[in-house]
């Protein structure tokens, strides 16, 4: 017998897959509904990674338009619509972070007194109830990890840094960082639902 929240996840996933199928046929109402369901968590992810509201809005707009234009290529076997969208947001945010790092290095070199803009963003409630509940469970699971594993995983997911850069930033050998990520992900896997 399946747990109720697992059933709900599958139903939600199927509904979002139907919305994507409708978008592939040019249904703007479906895009509107999908936006209502996913914009909160996707914007939050962009803000967590980029720390800049204007850049995050541009990114969310780009990704929803990409979903709209490539809806006919969505393959349910490759993961949920949310997984697809979150991966697109994260990959594009990493591109921006790396470009920004290069730009900051260049400008800091030219004017060493310049400091990068600080991260901003007050917490706010958003997104569908389903995703908010889910988010709470994932945060709780992450909080239950030992702090060193939690830190390594958060750096690895949100910072856009390479393995070596994470090791340097955390002042630990590369092998230690890899082991922390592995152990942390294995523990998370045990406490998270099978499919998002």
């Amino acid at each position, binding site marked *: 017998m399946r747990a109720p929240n697992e059933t709900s996840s599958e139903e939600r996933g199927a509904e979002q897959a139907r919305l994507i199928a409708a978008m592939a046929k040019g249904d703007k109402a479906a895009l509107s509904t999908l936006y209502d369901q996913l914009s909160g*968590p996707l914007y939050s992810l962009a803000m967590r990674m980029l720390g800049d509201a204007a850049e995050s809005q541009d990114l969310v707009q780009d990704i929803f338009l990409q979903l709209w234009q490539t809806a006919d290529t969505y393959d349910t076997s490759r993961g949920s619509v949310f997984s697809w969208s979150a991966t697109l947001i994260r*990959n594009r945010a990493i591109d*921006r972070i790396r470009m920004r790092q*290069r730009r900051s290095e260049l400008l800091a070199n030219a004017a060493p007194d310049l400091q990068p803009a600080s991260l901003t963003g007050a917490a706010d409630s958003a997104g569908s109830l389903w995703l908010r509940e889910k988010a709470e469970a994932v945060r709780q699971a992450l909080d239950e990890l030992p702090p060193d594993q939690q830190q390594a995983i958060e750096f690895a997911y949100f910072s856009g840094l390479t393995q070596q850069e994470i090791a340097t930033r955390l002042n630990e050998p590369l092998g230690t960082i890899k082991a922390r990520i592995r152990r942390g992900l294995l523990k998370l896997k045990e406490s998270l639902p099978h499919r998002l």
Partner: protein
Amino acid sequence: MSTELHQELAGLRALGLLDEAERRDFEAEIAAKPELAALCHMFDNTVTHLALTAPAQTPPPELKARILNAAVVPPKAPVIDFPFLRFAPWLAAAGFALTAVWLTVQNISLRSENAAQQTERRLAEVAYRSAQAQLAERTLVAERMVNDLGSRLRRSEDLARLKVSALASLAGNTREAQAIAVWDPEQQSGLLTFDGLPVISDEQDYQIWVVDPAYPNPVNGGVFHVAADGRVSLSFRPDQPIKQVAAFAISLEKKGGVPKAEGPIVLLGKIPSI
């Protein structure tokens, strides 16, 4: 059964942290071992959940309208239900007739296309000559400005005042480009001359940035496009007062520019401290 090494690789792969060689080797191994594919799928799913741990933020209400307005409905070809077999002979006849008409039309169309292309080429030549003339005119204006600045340079007080910087191309971007920036702190304006700057698409602009330690971000100095020969001379005035110029930078941005640099920096030049 998965080893610790496989678990480690699967985790790093899910986080996008494998380098190119590691990724290629691991993908080859995954393709050969279904149990590894399952392990990777499991790690991918776990990593996707991490997206939800970002502190909740609300996008501004106008973003939705912006996205819906930008989502253009692609035109769909009408689908016609046609009982094919019943009309097969007529279709064949119609096909022959259409082919004959099509060939005739193609013949006429190719002839007129040839004529149109010749006209287009002539128009393009005229446009090119006109652009060259405009550019020459601009260059003259810039030369006058340089001469003007030069004449002012002869006065010793101006010589001390003006800041001159040679902007260096950044590796992998615009190796061959050359640029000189002259900055007049009193007038709060500058002059830039470029040579060999790569031509960019119509959807992009080069944007000038003035680095002043008084501001957290470089100050916008305006945008410009580049002519086919990569030469540009222009004056610029930053949109905020500059107290101390540390450097000039040129970045490649979307058309019309951005309030804060987003694109790659293609040229950079420090102002030597005197």
